[in-house]
């Protein structure tokens, strides 16, 4: 059991100071902006909660939030099952294990804007590999700068390409930790592959899958750079996710008050959903 005393605070002090400097001061700046109006020159007027009301009632925010939930929902619905399937099919030992792990982890180590640029080059209609293949070999008209559906397919495929490996690696770590005795027992009982998965593998992967779902939710909900570089939020506003819209308001139009209010609402939603996921997935852990 853990030692019960207050010495722990000395150990966490450096972390506390550094993270507080980086988190609290900027967060207070955002709170400060969110309740004031400015016309430049550092002159501010008290605005109260008007910005929050304005954001919560604006159709633009609702639309961006809807697109964000659609995007994150699609990402989770594709990446989690796909990641589990690939992890189940991976070799458990031998020469190919490190080869698989290293090649699969590679997309995650590419800078995010390079990922966007890479997919842009990959999907250009006449000179990109995928764009050329779709248009000229398959004869499907595909141009993500014109067609919102194509743009959506592209950003979702890009994210699947980029992050499914995270789910694979996590599930794989859970799978290799299962002792052989479990499988032998299942074999003696004549268990089908499905019941092995349902009663042995899935429960053993629960912790790592919780981490996977939480990380994928947080990161896909906050995604900015890759879709911004790839589509710029277009065509029209069809792929303008929350972060992209936020940066447009804050740095494009320089509407600091509404942008700050939107930031806080955005952060609150992320926190709330993460907490919900976490509580739901760990609620039987108390045993």
């Amino acid at each position, binding site marked *: 059991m853990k030692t019960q005393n207050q010495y722990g605070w000395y150990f966490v002090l450096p972390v506390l100071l550094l993270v507080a400097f*980086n988190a609290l001061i900027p967060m207070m700046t955002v709170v400060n902006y969110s309740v004031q109006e400015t016309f430049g020159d550092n002159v501010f007027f008290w605005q109260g909660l008007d910005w929050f009301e304005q954001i919560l009632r604006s159709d633009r925010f609702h639309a961006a939030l809807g697109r964000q939930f659609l995007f994150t929902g699609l990402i989770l619905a594709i990446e989690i099952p796909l990641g589990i399937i*690939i992890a189940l099919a991976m070799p458990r030992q031998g020469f190919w294990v490190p080869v*698989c*792990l290293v090649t699969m982890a590679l997309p995650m180590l590419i800078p995010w804007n390079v990922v966007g640029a890479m997919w842009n080059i990959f999907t250009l209609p006449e000179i990109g*590999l995928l764009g050329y293949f779709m248009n000229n070999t398959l004869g499907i008209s595909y141009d993500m700068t014109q067609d919102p559906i194509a743009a959506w397919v592209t950003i979702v495929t890009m994210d699947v*390409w980029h992050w499914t490996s995270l789910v694979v690696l996590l599930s794989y770590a859970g799978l290799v930790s299962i002792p052989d005795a479990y499988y032998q027992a299942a074999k003696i009982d004549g268990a089908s592959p499905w019941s092995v998965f349902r009663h042995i593998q899935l429960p053993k992967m629960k912790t790592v899958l919780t981490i996977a779902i939480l990380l994928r939710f947080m990161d896909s909900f906050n995604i900015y750079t890759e879709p911004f570089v790839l589509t710029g939020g277009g065509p029209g506003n069809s792929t303008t996710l929350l972060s992209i819209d936020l940066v447009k308001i804050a740095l494009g139009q320089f509407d600091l008050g509404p942008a700050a209010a939107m930031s806080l609402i955005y952060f609150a939603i992320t926190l709330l959903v993460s907490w919900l996921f976490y509580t739901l997935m760990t609620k039987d852990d108390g045993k």
Partner: protein
Amino acid sequence: MKKRSLIPILYILFLMLPIYWLVAMSFKTTNEILSGFSLFPQTFTLENYRVIFTDPTWYWGYINSIIYVSLNTVISIIVALPAAYAFSRYSFLGDKQLFFWLLTNRMAPAAVFALPFFQLYSAVGLFDTHLAVALAHCLFNIPLAVWILEGFMSGVPKELDETAYVDGYSFPRFFVSIFLPTIKAGVGVAAFFCFMFSWVELLLAKTLTAVAAKPIAATMTKTASSAGYELGLLAAAGTLTIIPGAIVIYFVRNYIAKGFALGRV
């Protein structure tokens, strides 16, 4: 068995296709790229790479990125080690709340912090320095490092600490000469993750720098807009950003699966 291995093979093929295309593009001339589709480079050229290695605005981008990423990794690990030890060994007032608060910093969208960070680091006179980016990236890397290290440390039985104290070790000597070697895989994995997230992040790095500490990724976005359609050059720069990542994965390849599980399997 044969059928089963088809799934990972297809998946890896899917992962490699866009990377192949980027690398292939980097060996083509601009003329060839714009004139039409070709699966392999027809006129193989190293011109794009020559430009990058001879133009200081390009190669300094790489040096800047490597400096702040290394700085961030060192700071994050040094600060996270004692904190992770505290979370894994002591129970103190507010420890769970503190741990959760640390994790919430990973949930904050970087876009939220871009403008306040610019103002904060300008105010303390660190704008456009490597240290500014390294410190800013601590926001999401320290919580992650604490989380991973805590997972690995909790796997070490407490008896190890107690035996060392009975043998007359002081705490610092125990920590450096006994405890650290025991969890060195965890330190490697945590360092890998700090490197990774600092290397791939662009929004904050771009916001906090102008000229002197500009990261390679920002140099690329500038070129993409100003030079118009220099796709070959862009592809070559992109290809070079993959290499440091590939090198660091190689070092942690045996721990990578456990590392992604944050030491919690």
